[in-house]
């Protein structure tokens, strides 16, 4: 064998050994590969080189949104401003959980619910300032909400505001979302710990093997993580984290004469078809940590167009949505929920012209209306210290609160 040939074989052998060793080390650090990059995901340029994101990473068109969707909760939260530093002493921390409406589809960060609430600089009785964090995520599933909530509890919230809508409730759709499927170990743990009805062996779960945790197996997650770090520069430079089209198709006002909802026909919406068990799990997670929770039935578009006597909007036939509201009212009645759980039914709070491209996406003005309502409740829960003007506003808000199904449940 010539020297050259020996040299090449040595190089090949070393490359192979190094490749295998690196892959094994990576897999050991990541196993179980829950959403990918369990360990590496915590490393982030956000809050170090780039400012933390004001909402969780999500984006179908990264090149224009400077944002992208990924499955690693660690990486997602590490990129959020919530991970910036230890909680300041003077902060009353409110975490907003919910769907695309909470995340702020088509809204600038300053117009989202969190942005609006923060702009108010609400003081609490003990001298802290209310600081809201947007943990909405544009997927309609209570299980997704609980998954994020369970992860978010480590950030020492003082209040959880959980915005829900009927579309997030269908029990058979809970696991139909990539972020849920790719975080199978955590979701399974939630199913087991809170005796959820979902099947632990649901075939939609992505079950990573040990090899899936290697560098090769995690190449997609690794690329996503790298791109998330890179897009942080543009987030920092532009403050943009979603694509704002010049024009969008407005939410339907003229509706089909179709009374069905998710394959169900009137007159009865069975409560078993809705994932109240998941809602209860979320409530328990907060209650176990002694954190109050404000559950909000978020505003929907109440159409006045064709067939609006049959449907409120594209999502909801009237019969189903009305029964859902009644089920929610009963389920969250003060006598049935733990201490520190509050409910606000804000379904008709926002006028129909303040919705954008879907029955739950709000305009900046619509967002302001809901944020004012939320702020009033947060203020009350936090023991607000109000100025005279705020006290007057607060009295008005309290009156409005009762009109919108506000339940107080004092500890």
């Amino acid at each position, binding site marked *: 064998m010539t020297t050259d*040939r020996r040299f090449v074989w040595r190089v090949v052998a070393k490359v192979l050994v190094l490749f295998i060793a690196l892959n094994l080390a990576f897999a050991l650090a990541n196993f179980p590969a829950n959403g990918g990059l369990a360990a590496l995901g915590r490393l982030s340029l956000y809050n170090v080189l780039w400012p933390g994101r004001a909402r969780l990473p999500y984006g179908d068109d990264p090149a224009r949104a400077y944002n992208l969707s990924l499955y690693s909760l660690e990486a997602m939260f590490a990129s959020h401003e919530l991970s910036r530093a230890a909680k300041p002493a003077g902060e009353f921390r409110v975490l907003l959980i919910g769907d695309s409406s909470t995340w702020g589809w088509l809204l600038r960060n300053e117009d989202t619910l969190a942005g609006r609430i923060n702009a108010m600089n609400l003081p609490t009785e003990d001298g802290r300032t209310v600081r809201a964090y947007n943990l909405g995520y544009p997927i309609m599933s209570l299980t997704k909400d609980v998954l994020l909530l369970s992860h978010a509890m480590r950030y020492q919230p003082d209040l959880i505001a959980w915005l829900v809508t009927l579309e997030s409730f269908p029990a058979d759709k809970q696991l139909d979302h990539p972020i849920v499927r790719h975080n199978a170990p955590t979701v399974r743990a939630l199913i087991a710990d809170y005796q959820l009805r979902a099947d632990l062996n649901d075939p939609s779960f992505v079950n990573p093997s040990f090899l899936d945790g290697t560098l090769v197996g995690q190449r997609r997650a690794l690329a996503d993580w790298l791109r998330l770090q890179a897009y942080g*520069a543009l987030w920092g430079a532009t403050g943009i984290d979603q694509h704002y089209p010049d024009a969008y198709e407005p939410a339907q006002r003229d509706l089909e004469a179709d009374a069905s909802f998710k394959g169900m026909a009137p007159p009865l919406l069975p409560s078993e078809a809705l994932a109240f068990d998941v809602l209860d799990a979320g409530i328990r997670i907060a209650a176990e940590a002694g954190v109050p929770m404000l559950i909000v039935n978020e505003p929907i578009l109440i159409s006045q167009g064709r067939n609006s006597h049959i449907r409120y909007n594209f999502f909801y036939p009237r019969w189903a949505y009305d029964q859902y509201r009644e089920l929610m009212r009963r389920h969250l009645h003060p006598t049935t929920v733990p201490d520190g759980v509050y409910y606000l039914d804000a379904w008709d709070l926002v006028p129909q012209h303040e919705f954008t491209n879907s029955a739950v996406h709000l305009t900046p003005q619509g967002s302001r209306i809901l944020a004012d309502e939320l702020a009033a409740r947060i203020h009350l829960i936090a023991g607000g210290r109000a100025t005279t003007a705020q006290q007057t506003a607060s009295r008005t808000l309290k009156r409005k609160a009762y009109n919108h199904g506000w339940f107080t449940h004092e500890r």
Partner: protein
Amino acid sequence: MVTSERHPPIAASRFTIAQAQVRNSALFVLSVLAIYALQPSIPIRYMDFWFPTASLGLAVVVWAATATGQRLFDRAFAMDGLALVGMVIAVAATRYLDPLSSLITRSPAPDVSAVLIALVAIAGLMVLASRLVGPRPAWTTALVIGLIALLILLKYEPLTQGFASALRAWQGQSVAAASALDVRWLGFSYIFFRLASALRDRAAGRLPGMLLHEFVTYVVFAPALIAGPIDRPDRFLRDLRAPFRFNLADATEGARRIATGAFKKFVVADLIAVFALNEVNAGQAHGAPWMWLLVYAYAFRLYFDFGGYTDIAIGIARSFGIKLPENFNRPYLKPNLTQFWNSWHMSLAQWFRAYYFNPLTRALRTREWAMPIIIFVGQATTMLLIGLWHGITWNFAIWGLWHGLGLFAHNRWAEFARARLAIPPERRRLQQAVDAAGALVTFHFVALGWVWFALPDVALSLEVFGKLFGL
């Protein structure tokens, strides 16, 4: 590290010569097929077949025009010509292989009868070129001007749009939908340099005789088709005709360059590209520090992208025993702009130096102009042309002049400093500090120049400069 320098030159033997012939045939076939396979999809019908065919046609015509003095139509020509025609017809015939009709081209090729007519036309042009151009320098110049006109047609957007309209009308497609983006003729920018080199070298009597397959391989050499480097015909031919034996050293070195290039391009450059300056984020970014970040990112993205492509091209060629010229040599570490241009896109700068700057300055010297004026005219117009080669826009022109003026300023400064500020050889630390400062200044001059290069219009570029300097 294994390098070919450890190996003595490969001795000529029947075996190594035969291997070289096999290698050359393979390169010929692969390069011809590659221009069809690599040609991007084009919305104008059949153009993803016709543009590569036109590249081959130009190569054949220029070969005929430059092959004067050789026996043109001999047995070797017959073999090469038949092979070339056979390949073109074979590519065209894939249209009948449904569902594999897009096996090589992006969309089904045109009817074979149309292809045959085109081949006859090319053959006619070839005969005409061999008769007319070869013996007459004026015709050589006319052919060069024709190539430059074609380049302008493809680089000046209003003309390109008109060309797209004409092509659409020819194919019976909507002219209203014509766009300059329709005319994406793969590799023509680099094919132009190779054809012009051959014509100029022929006129100067420097062009070696090349067989048809050698010349076509040189013009459309697949690894260097998209992003260079720009080789010279005599150097390329030397490698092609040298005895060849597949050897581990070249293969290893080739693989190393390919791996390095792939990492630079697909990991580093593509990642940095995410936040590199572009026409969208230029208007969106706020604050000088962020704007500087985007500009730096663009500078490094361009280097790693282009450098990565070059490494891959050089690596692939090296595996076949072809040593393409280097294109980059740590350009951002150079202490002045002159050295930067001796280490950035080196083959392009060398091409312009050989075929434009040197002849121009020689001609100007005969007019007894003052040396600074000759240098200024030479450098400014050379860089202007390099700028315009990227695209005929105000921004590319300004970018070229930016560097032309920079080079002139450095030239004058170096002249001034040589006599007054020379650093003695024993003061190495001082020299190192001066070089480091020079590299920093040079890098920033180049990076700011990229603002013109990266953006489509002057107003946006000025807006970016305003943000960079907090104006």
